[in-house]
């Protein structure tokens, strides 16, 4: 039973990480977002049509955590867009240990966004493919690949998914 408990605790920890991740974005705490990644992380948002065709063109592509921080500064200081009101929802969670302290995790996501005039719409649906590592600071994303179904991006994408 101990191993079943250990396994359950791992699953719960990973789910809690994902919950914290989406709450960070949905609460507009962008400044905390890069801190959930490792220094050498990969963060990518890519259309499923490209992914399935083996084509690399991304919507967003970062190959280290500094690029994530740059994006946050740009979003806060430079770019002009209607402030999103994201709500992420997750389901179909799966995880497995790939090696000691390193875990693959995936799940569906849908982002419901509300416009300034007060209408909530599905902004984007897709699937997360994550690699999580255990660090002295806790679980961190070594890679988060966001593969989106909703290939027609409505207006623009500012905030991360």
């Amino acid at each position, binding site marked *: 039973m101990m191993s079943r408990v250990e396994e359950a605790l791992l699953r719960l920890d990973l789910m809690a990480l994902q919950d914290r991740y989406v709450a960070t974005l949905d609460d507009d705490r962008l400044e905390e977002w890069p801190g959930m990644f490792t220094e050498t992380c990969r963060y990518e*948002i890519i*259309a499923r*049509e*490209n992914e399935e*065709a083996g*084509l*690399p*063109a*991304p*919507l*967003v*592509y*970062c*190959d*280290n955590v*500094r*690029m994530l*921080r*740059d994006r946050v*500064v*740009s979003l806060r*200081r*430079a*770019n*002009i*867009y*209607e402030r999103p009101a994201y709500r992420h929802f997750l389901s179909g969670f799966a995880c497995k240990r790939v090696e000691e302290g390193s875990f693959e995790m995936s799940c569906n996501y849908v982002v419901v966004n509300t416009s300034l005039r007060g209408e909530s719409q599905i902004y984007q649906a897709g699937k997360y493919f994550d690699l999580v590592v255990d660090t002295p600071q806790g679980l961190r994303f070594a890679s988060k690949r966001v593969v989106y179904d909703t*290939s*027609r*991006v*409505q*207006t*623009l*994408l*500012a905030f991360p998914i």
Partner: protein
Amino acid sequence: MNSADRAATSFEGAGLRFPRRDGSRVPFSAFSSPEVYALEQERIFRGPVWSFLGLEAEIPKPGDFKRTYIGDTPVVMTRAEDGSLVAWVNRCAHRGAEICRLPRGNATAHTCVYHQWSYDAKGNLLSIPFRRGSKNMTGMPEDFDLAKHGLQRLRVDSYKGLVFATFSASVCGLTDYIGPEMGPYVDRIFHKPVVYLGCTRQYSNSNWKLYFENVKDPYHASLLHLFHTTFNIFRVGMRAKCLADSAQGLHSVVLAIAQDNLGAEAYQQQNIRSYDDKFTLEDHSILGLIPEYDEITTNHIQTIFPQLVIQQIHNTLAARQLLPKGPDHFELIFHFFGYEDDTEELRNLRIKQANLAGPAGYISMEDTEATELVQRGIVGSESNSSVLEMARSAPDEQHSLISENLVRRFWRGYQNLMGFKSEEDGGA
């Protein structure tokens, strides 16, 4: 009967009048009227223009196809078994079903799922099930001629790997359509074989012409897109070039020319220069610029009316395809590409710099935000007009980014195509 015909009729009476002859006043209803939109489908998209469909690199092999649009009309571009390019309306000659049901694929024959009429890649009708009937069943009339019931084929041509098609039998050839002013700039980007890297799509709640204005408007660049300024990146000694074609003035190119070959390091050194605050990029590689053309430009933005915008921003390359979707929506598809002979480093840089342009691009995301602000701003003001005065007194100035010359030139060409008179000409 045809809804565009009806619209035409109603416009013959009413007319969309432009207050001035020089393109400096655009009535806002041009961006919202369903009648204008229907008439554009007829007079522009099914009229005497060449519409961009995609890159040859998207369909390199015989049988490769891609589903797309000219204006509202669904079309397919494909490569026949003999390697030639073909385009046809994606509508079965029988009862009108879309034949090609996948966005992309490879097929040398296309069979409509409804009754399995089958066409070759060139749109010729090959076979009709039970054409000769069966036992006591009659089949098609004796005089039914397969040759007369192929798909509606379009004139298609490619220029340096860019594929265009037209419904018009009378419009000039593609090279002439692009014209002597624009040709060299297309050549600049498409001088050697390209590789397709995928696409991103953006859907905007605004009229397609607002986007066309936007890419012909260098005036907005440093004012709307604050990325460079925010990160204290001075683009010292930036020179510009803004040209339209001399035929209709509907095409144009805007270049921002770097005086020096600035690589990422050069940008990095500029951090010593600063504005009021102290924001700096932590990862400068995104603004690297590996020299690859005779003239080094940070931006090359070129429109070939009505469906293409060629983009080179630093080392990221894209052919943007603009598709109208009703009076108040358009879709914009960024087709990213590289060159066949890219080094790995250069290819990776192109991909990384996709962060600059596209639906989430640091220096492009504001464009659809702006066009939507206009679409919302003009509601209730359909009888008012925009005011395009910047550099109006210098219509031949070509080295200034502070100019609306290309936009005014565009509207004059548009009026001409659409048959819309100006009030100054006594337009009805």
